[in-house]
């Protein structure tokens, strides 16, 4: 059973953090198809968050086809997470390395690099979610 945690200061909406953690758990094999996700009551009992937030997260996962809600029983992992083909991952990693070298040469330190990355991914976010 997956254990959720919350980072209130991350700037990422709570429901999205839950979604991400489910995805990660699926990628790491902690959650397999057929596993039941914690009930809404269990999640809010552990995290002290609004039940609607959990429902929103589970609906999003349902929409993405990763889980399916069975009325009266619970929410279950249904799909496989499309993991990136290893080649794509290698290519992405290589271009990222090159970019990081360029950034360092331009005078950015690790902190600047992380901020730039965060800003860029955040800017991308509304388009994804909407």
């Amino acid at each position, binding site marked *: 059973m997956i254990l959720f945690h*919350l980072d*209130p200061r991350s700037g990422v909406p*709570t429901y999205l953090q839950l979604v991400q953690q489910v995805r990660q758990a699926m990628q790491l094999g902690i959650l397999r198809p057929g596993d039941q996700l914690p009930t*809404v*009551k269990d999640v*809010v*009992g*552990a*995290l*002290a*968050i*609004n*039940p*609607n*937030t*959990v429902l929103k997260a589970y609906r999003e996962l349902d929409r993405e086809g990763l889980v399916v809600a069975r009325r009266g029983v619970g929410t279950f992992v249904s799909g496989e997470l499309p993991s990136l083909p290893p080649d794509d991952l290698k290519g992405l990693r290589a271009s990222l390395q090159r970019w990081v070298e360029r950034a360092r040469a331009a005078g950015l330190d690790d902190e600047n690099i992380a901020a730039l990355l965060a800003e860029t991914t955040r800017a991308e976010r509304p388009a994804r979610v909407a």
Partner: protein
Amino acid sequence: MTAPVHADGLGKRYGSTWALRDCTLEIPEGSVTALVGANGAGKTTLLQLVVGLSRPTDGSVMVFGADPVGDPSTVLQRVGFVAQEHPLYRGFSVADTLKLGRKLNPGWDDAIAHARIEQLGLPFRRKVGKLSGGQQAQVALTLALAKRPDLLVLDEPVASLDPLARREFMQSLMEAVSEGGLTVILSSHILADLERVCDHIVILANGRTQLAGPIDDVVETHRLLTGPRADAAAIARMHHVVSERHTERQTSLLVRSNGHVYDATWELHEVDLEEIVLAYLVRDRSASAEPARSA
């Protein structure tokens, strides 16, 4: 379905001071609403009017369509209330307290009450006065929940509790909400807790409603505008300026808007809920209050 709470021009005066004035709002069913404001802003006054402990001086408040003062039995059977500092009879044991709930509430569910107390690990025989603050708060919450209310009203329920007791209280509360059929209003002047627990917010300052609405909406429609030193007038013509700050070279405005801000001179930033609330709380006292936006 009538709204859990509907206030219309609600006001309450003590002597010559208005503790609450011109309060118009509607609490949506099923929401967990945060009632925020500084101490003395009118939070307790509003909640006391909702449960019928006070009589309005002006305007009206309806709970599920009934008048809390004129029709107390109807309202009280559907409303659970935990007052500030969770008053309990210190000389009563926990069991006595539950018995009190059973005797005075026709809708009382003794099984729920006992189950909750057992789950929390509280001793039935111990006198309430000997329990810790967190345990007392949980007993008070049990008393309010076991009558199976449709509306739960909590006045600063965790103000005097240590962080662990606070977290446990909120966990307990959210579990109750997750079971469905409950609308919650909870007041606090500590913002951090409320953000994770609530989905609606009402901001009170100086006895008036400054803002009311879903938290997601509030965060989505408020933006911080920064730019070179400038007058806010142009922006104010099209959007509601909540607060403004100026230095020699820079100006920043907190703005509420339904549409986009199409002004290239300003840089837009998102603002988190705490900043938004604080901006409303420090607004000029003499500024006339906006009629509250309801959900």
